[in-house]
């Protein structure tokens, strides 16, 4: 006999499915110091590697003498390019179709570049031995400016054949990497040339770094007896690492097991393949012992993947009334010494062409010139989809500049140019199909929430008081309406090193009605173990608390492209829902058999199938699971498992409306954020609390980038911000209060309508903070001042505007 209690509400609550602010299941171990990170991997006989790094940004390596290092007791090996060359591993392919030195081959091209890899019995000996490796350098001219690079006679990449095409077409200069174009150049230029109003500006998005709290590292263990290589590492894409490791090493893929254990933040920094990974593998193969390599903070900031460094020259045209007619953008992209961007193959500038933003712009053109300089390689998506933060910053600055040109309120200018709700799905001038949106509703809600009109009035009064000499503080109102493009992506146009960017989920329901699900992604703090269980709970009726989520072990998880670019929920989340639906379909057949009715006579109700019209007759998912394993059901295979590989039909387009209210001290350049309002629309909301956490974290990283964080070089290519004293990571002290809010516009093509949220706050936050700074000085004519807006730069802005008397 079936028990009618608990009630439906109680069952829904027990499920903790979609929409539940379920607490993060990961946090118990993280907050108790029980996480398991790469550096926690300790194997018997494990050796330790460390790099000799280049002190110069550009130099010829005339000789390397390892004798003194080898003589130090405890040193096992010192690898140089010469040792890797017979294995063809002294260079490696980058994700961007270029190649990169694993160890300096004849010259070094950036400060901190890996020159030799020391392997020793312990970490201390390895560090001591590094000092004993004698490298004879001959300094070469250094280029840290991409514009200068394109004029200079100095050839940075002597390995590339002069005049030959690169991975993305012709190279017009020896320091040029590619020109990538999208949109209609001539048509755009015509519109702009004949426009009533044109605003033109150079918008620089400075070089910064994702700086995850855990630096990069790996442990390689070659089992020579069984021919198996196990590799633990800080990998945002473990399956891709396995494939690449197999292709590079010649070890068959089934003999390689890659494990991403707990990862202490990635933010794009852990997508690429680094020399340290390769060297730890080679060293383990050579020595037959496990080899660990862990970066320190300075290594991480100096040598692993940076983000941004885009010089964006824009022109935007409009009618006198403010209707935008065209957008033109040319980017000079500083990629550093090697092109090691992590973008889908066909997109060397990522999805930068989302730069028409939230606006209905009839015609547009983008051209991006990639350039080599003597800086670290990278160009990763730091908490954003590929180059989307750059794009959002660009358009949101251009809108502000256009508003000045039109002498118009920037909120109103946005409103009259938003893509309207009924225009979705919307084809952008640069080739994207925006899936869904309701920008006007979000915008009005945001402006109401902050009393926008009141703020403008206060600002006007403040300016007047400032001019009367009654205050030295200005008030800035930073507006942003951003549209993201995430969830890469459809295999027809998105791949990484030839591998389509689908993702996957495999579910096993256990006989007693609990489950394990494995995905091709890997959490680095996003809380997948919490939220993916919620998707499955809603799809299968098994409480989230009874579902284990596993990721990151290539021997057990299905193949997937990993976690970055806010793709996990849009792609793997979709696979999870689809796999859940396969489970439910089979469960329905089993329930029909058990209840002796036709499949079509059943309907799904939270956690059970119920006979239509007879609510007392039902089978819960737990009962069905038990039967699936223990009862012979004619025509149905035993067991209850499902796999789904999901190739998304389109990207998803989360959006949001942010307002930042900032006080600025014109004398000291200090700022105070009085209010920050963030409205996010990420489609269906899986876990509101996790969303809020993601928004807080992303906004704080945005604050860092906009207000102080940078990787700065001097003219000799020395990194000036290589420690956390100078590289700004905000603490609670610098972090303001955030007010979060939402609208919910589901994605029409995603199985549960979710769009992804982890990166929105960084994409939208940076322009909101930066626009607030600019807006404070708008009354005094400021059009553009480059980030980061640290004290001295704000002071300089005020000084240049004559505000210091």
């Amino acid at each position, binding site marked *: 006999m079936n028990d009618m209690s608990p009630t439906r509400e109680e069952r829904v609550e027990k499920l903790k499915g979609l929409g539940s602010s379920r607490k993060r299941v990961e946090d118990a171990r993280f907050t108790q110091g029980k996480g398991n990170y790469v550096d926690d991997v300790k194997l018997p006989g494990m050796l330790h590697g460390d790099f000799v790094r280049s002190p110069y940004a550009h130099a010829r390596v005339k000789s390397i003498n390892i004798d003194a290092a080898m003589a130090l007791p405890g040193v096992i090996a010192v690898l140089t390019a010469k040792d890797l060359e017979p294995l063809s591993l002294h260079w490696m392919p980058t994700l961007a179709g270029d190649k990169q030195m694993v160890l300096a081959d004849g010259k070094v091209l950036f400060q901190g570049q890996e020159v030799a890899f020391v392997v020793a019995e312990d970490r201390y000996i390895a560090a001591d031995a590094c000092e004993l490796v004698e490298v004879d350098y001959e300094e070469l001219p250094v280029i840290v400016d991409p514009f200068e690079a394109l004029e200079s006679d100095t050839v940075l990449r002597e390995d590339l054949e002069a005049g030959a095409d690169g991975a993305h077409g012709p190279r017009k200069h020896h320091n040029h990497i590619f020109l990538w174009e999208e949109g209609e150049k001539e048509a755009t230029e015509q519109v702009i040339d004949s426009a009533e109003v044109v605003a033109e500006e150079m918008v620089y998005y400075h070089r910064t770094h994702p700086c995850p709290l855990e630096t990069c590292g790996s442990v390689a263990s070659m089992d020579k007896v069984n021919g198996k290589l196990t590799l633990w590492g800080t990998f945002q894409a473990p399956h891709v690492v396995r494939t690449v490791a197999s292709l590079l090493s010649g070890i068959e893929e089934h003999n390689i097991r890659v494990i991403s254990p707990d990862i202490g933040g990635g933010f794009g920094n852990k997508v690429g393949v680094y020399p340290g990974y390769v060297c730890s593998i080679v060293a383990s193969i050579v020595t037959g012992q496990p080899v660990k390599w862990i970066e320190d903070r300075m290594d991480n900031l100096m040598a692993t993947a940076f983000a941004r460094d885009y010089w964006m020259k824009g022109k935007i045209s409009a009618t006198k009334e403010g209707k935008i007619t065209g957008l033109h953008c040319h980017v000079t992209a500083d990629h550093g010494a090697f092109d090691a961007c992590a973008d889908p193959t066909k997109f060397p500038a990522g999805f930068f062409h989302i730069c028409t933003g939230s606006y209905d712009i009839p015609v547009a053109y983008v051209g991006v010139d990639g350039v080599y300089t003597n800086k670290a390689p990278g160009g990763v998506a730091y908490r954003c989809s590929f180059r989307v933060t750059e794009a959002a910053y660009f358009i949101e600055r251009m809108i502000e500049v256009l508003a000045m040109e039109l002498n118009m309120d920037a909120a109103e200018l946005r409103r009259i140019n938003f893509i309207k709700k009924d225009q979705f799905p919307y084809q952008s001038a640069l080739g994207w199909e925006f899936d869904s949106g309701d920008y006007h509703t979000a915008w009005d809600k945001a402006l109401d929430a902050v009393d926008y009109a009141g703020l403008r009035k206060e600002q006007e009064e403040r300016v007047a008081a400032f001019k009367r000499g009654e205050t030295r503080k200005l008030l800035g109102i930073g507006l942003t309406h951003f549209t993201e493009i995430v969830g890469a992506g459809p295999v027809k146009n998105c791949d990484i090193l030839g591998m389509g960017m689908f993702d996957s989920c495999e579910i096993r329901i256990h006989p007693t009605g609990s489950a394990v699900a494995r995905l091709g992604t890997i959490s680095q703090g996003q809380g997948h173990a919490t939220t993916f269980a919620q998707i499955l709970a809603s799809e299968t009726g098994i409480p989230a608390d009874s579902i284990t989520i596993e990721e990151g072990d290539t021997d057990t998880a299905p193949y997937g492209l990993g976690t970055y670019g806010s793709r996990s929920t849009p792609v793997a989340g979709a696979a999870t829902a689809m796999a859940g639906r396969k489970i439910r379909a089979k469960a329905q057949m089993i329930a029909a058999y058990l209840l002796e009715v036709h499949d079509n006579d059943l309907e799904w109700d939270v956690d059970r199938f119920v006979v239509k019209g007879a609510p007392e007759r039902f089978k819960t998912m737990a009962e069905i699971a038990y039967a699936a394993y223990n009862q012979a059901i004619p025509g149905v295979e035993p067991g209850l498992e499902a796999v789904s590989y999901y190739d998304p039909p389109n990207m998803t387009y989360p959006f949001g409306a942010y307002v930042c209210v900032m006080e600025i001290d014109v004398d000291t350049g200090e700022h105070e954020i009085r209010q920050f309002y963030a409205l996010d629309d990420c489609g269906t909301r899986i876990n509101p609390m996790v969303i809020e956490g993601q928004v807080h974290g992303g906004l704080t990283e945005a604050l860092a980038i906009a207000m102080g964080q940078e990787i700065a070089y001097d003219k000799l290519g020395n990194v000036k911000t290589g420690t956390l004293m100078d590289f700004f990571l*905000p603490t609670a002290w610098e972090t303001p209060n955030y007010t979060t809010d939402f609208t919910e516009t589901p994605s029409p093509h995603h199985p549960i309508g979710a769009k992804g949220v982890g990166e929105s706050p960084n994409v939208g936050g940076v322009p909101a903070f930066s626009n607030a700074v600019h807006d404070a000085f708008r009354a005094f004519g400021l059009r553009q001042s480059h980030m980061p807006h640290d004290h*001295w730069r704000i*002071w300089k802005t005020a000084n240049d505007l004559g505000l210091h008397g």
Partner: protein
Amino acid sequence: MIPPAFEYHRPQDVASAVQILAEQGDEARCLAGGHSLIPMMKLRMAAVEHLVDLQDIAEMQGITTESGTIRIGAMVTQHELITSDALASAAPIIREAALQIADPQVRYMGTVGGNVANGDPGNDMPGLMQALDATFHLHGPDGARDVAAREFFEAAYMTAREDEEILTAITFAPHAKGYAYEKQKRKIGDYATAAAAVLIEKDGMVAGNATVAMTNLSDTPVFSEAAGAALTGTSCDAHAMKAAIDAMLNDIDPTEDNRGPVEFKRHVAGVILSRAISRAWDRA
């Protein structure tokens, strides 16, 4: 970020510590809180073969206030400076300044002795001690000697202390009623872009003795006698303030770094000093 190997010593009294320093010469260094020295060792910018840890030396601990003199043992941590009731009443500027040093974790470890002995122009205590006209007590192989804080700092990381001498304590008299320590920094845990220590004694309606010392604006702390003098006899009005700032600007010599260019630092130094003077005067 791994230091080379070193020998570790942990003497129980000043005499044994001095003896180790004397024996090992310039291969030995004192270790107080380690929050300046250890980063340097990890960066391999300081090669120290013998580390002489001072934490067990009882005579270098403690804060006393007796017969008009405040004595702070060199090994007193910044955290202890903040929580000491005796200091809060006799020299509240110490607490105000110490609260602006780094962050709580650093302050639990960093000592007042290490902060001044280090000779780092970025440290906050040296300028403060100059404003207080403190005396530094040194112990070396030849016995004890005293050096005035205003005479102690010679250049960046260069002080009047000899290699084999130990700074054991700092003494000074209770300070003027008007006091302020003002500091601009980029973020928590940062050294000053500019900082000012100001003490003003009120003499009737005007300022009597006034002292001004600035931090991180030269290769040593800057005790600006002229800036103090510009305030004496005035009501610290706009005119006097400007004179003090001009005098101070004559004495500082900042250099460009990640905190900003020279022009900016000079401007901020003026703003910070004016804020410090206003607050000190309000309290005077």
